[in-house]
């Protein structure tokens, strides 16, 4: 697999496991950064994961079904949480933020229809409007 291919596969995998679209992932601006980070951190496991993922139908993906070894499943969980939180989990308890930008770009905020605390404010009084345009567009 060439670099471009594995990156692309990484994004496809990320779409499947996070439930976000490719454009959502790209709009964090951190896609390449995350890919390179994981590739540097866990090169072998990532390669293996992507190879295996290539043969799994997306529609059928689930962490419960044991397509993957425990090791691969753990890496999947790390990748999910990296996208959602901007944190790299060393185990299920300990983590660190990759950067302040990764904190701000955590997809969890979009998932819960909110915004990262301390960034991307929603405007005076927005907290008292249960439905406004953004909600309609996103739902």
């Amino acid at each position, binding site marked *: 697999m060439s670099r471009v291919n594995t990156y692309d596969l990484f994004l496809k995998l990320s779409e499947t496991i996070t439930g*976000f679209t490719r454009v959502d992932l790209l709009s964090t601006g951190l896609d390449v950064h995350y890919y390179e980070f994981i590739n540097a951190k866990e090169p072998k496991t990532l390669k293996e994961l992507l190879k295996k993922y290539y043969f799994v139908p997306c529609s059928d993906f689930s962490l419960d079904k044991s397509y993957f070894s425990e090791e691969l499943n753990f890496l999947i969980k790390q990748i999910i949480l990296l996208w959602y939180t901007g944190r790299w989990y060393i185990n299920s308890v300990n983590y660190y*933020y990759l950067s302040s930008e990764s904190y701000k770009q955590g997809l*969890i*905020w979009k998932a819960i*229809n909110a915004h990262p605390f301390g960034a991307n404010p929603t*405007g005076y009084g927005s907290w008292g409007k249960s439905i406004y345009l953004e909600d309609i567009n996103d739902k």
Partner: protein
Amino acid sequence: MINECIDVSEKEFDVVIVGGGIAGSLIAKQLGIYGKKVLILEAGESKHMKYLDYQRNLDLYYSASVKSPNSPFSSNSHAPQPDELDVISKIPYMNSKGYFIQMGPTPYRSDYTRHLGGATLHWLGTCLRMIPDDFKTKTKFGVGLDWPLTYEELRPYYEQAEYEIGISGEVNDQRELGQLLNIKEEWFGKEYVFPMHKIPESNIDKYLSKQLEGKSITFQGHQYSLKVTSTPQARNGIPNMKYRYRGEPYKPVGAVGNDFQGKRCVGYSSCVPICPIQAKYSALKTLDSALKSGNVTIVSKAVVTEIKVDGFGKVEKVVYKAYTSNNPNDFSLYTAVGKIFVLAANPVENSKLMLKSLIKNDLIGKYLMDHPFLLTWGLSPQLLGIFKGPGSTSGIESLRNGKFREHRSAFRIEIGNLGWLWSNGAPYSIINSLVFEKNNSGKKLRESTYDMNQRQIQLGFMLEQPAEATNRITIDRREKDSFGNLRPIINYKLSEYTIKGMEAAKQTASTLYSYLGAKECTSYTDDDPGFIQYNNNSYAFSGAGHFMGGHVMGTSIHNSVVDKYQKVWGYKNLFAVGCGSLPTTGTANPTLTLAALALMSAKWINNSLEKEKITIGVDK
């Protein structure tokens, strides 16, 4: 003028203020306007008075693993500060690895910030007035201490404080609450309005308000309403055109160093610990306007280590350590001279300084209090539209007063806008368990994450704590850190009166969740440092960040450290101001009250300086 670590011994000031937090800055501003020469000695940094430097604190917040109250305001070895994260256990010595030496038996769980601006840098901004009965709990309920002043005396200074801080609120909501609390006195003046309209209520405020309409709870045969009330807060909103202060309409004050930011809250939701645009008040704003009088000098990185008193009860000078780097030996000792000295640091620092300087009064350091905080949480049957806006915009305030105060603490209930953030680390905790424990992924994960976060209710119960002499701050000259700073020693225990309040709080929580049709999820585990068992039930309290007591005010040197103007008994020109002077906690977040007291002191200090001028005139 702001300077770092300079020598001011050649200059003479009218007033020397120790500590550049809200109390010190309000006094400095007033005296500066009156034309007095004022010096503020600030132990911490002052860089963040510049807009772009303030923004750098925000970066610390973004990248902090745990976004605790002090996460944007780093610790400084020359001016150490306690950190919430220092408390990790129920065993006192385990909690003593930071700045405080905790003697227990229960941990003191709050922290403060030693940077210019003080704890208003990381506060939430809730600005409730205390209720008149809070000023006479001994007389009225046989509990705690009485104040040497009445609510009526303080009321004009509350109004002034609400102007200086810049409060958004709806006074009619407070008036209605006053009736529920059975307040007979004039709590708010007849014509009074707050400077700005109330901050809009959040979705969850509105939901609770609707669900709890007409609902009540019974304690000892008395019925108490469970009404939701909008919170007056130190956050810029829409100016109320009816408001006048000395004839002038209110103009919101923006960020220090950037008048184009912060004139109205836009919902960053990070009030605690840092408002990125300074729409939330911090003492930096008051300091900025104090500097404009041209009469105020600020020296930062100047840790006052001793008060020097002559043989006649007159303070001559204070000694301060001016440090230039983060090296323990890199400092010089200088002195500052003035006519009047005002200790305006945190209650712990004020007490420590007086104890170290052998100020004569056995009560110094005693009556340390906080508002023990009991978090409860539940899941609503419906989606709430939360995780937006300021941390809290309304509360259930109708249980702050009643006959029950003879037996147990009163409390207010803070309605959280940010789900289980403080109780559970949401929204992160939710996704963590969905992924690691429940193996969720993909669309299902995304949907569950939304659903489980958007139904979270968090109600925080803020409990009254009466003054007890055994809860105290002391020092031991042998207990110093590696920089030579004395470490405060804290003895602290919750009395049965407060724990009974906790019991009532928990009952109230269960009642509320059932009215809301919500599933109560509160559970306290015995590894929580604040874990308590009482009558076979479990509780876990945390701190509210409200250090109170240490130099309480009273009617004489026998029952207090300061008089009602916060002048230290037995000393001609020494004041100790701030939350340390409060004899009772009531159930109001204390900053507004400390601000009112500081403004009253400022007026008194100015008058006494004027009198001195007249005396000098006569002598000539």
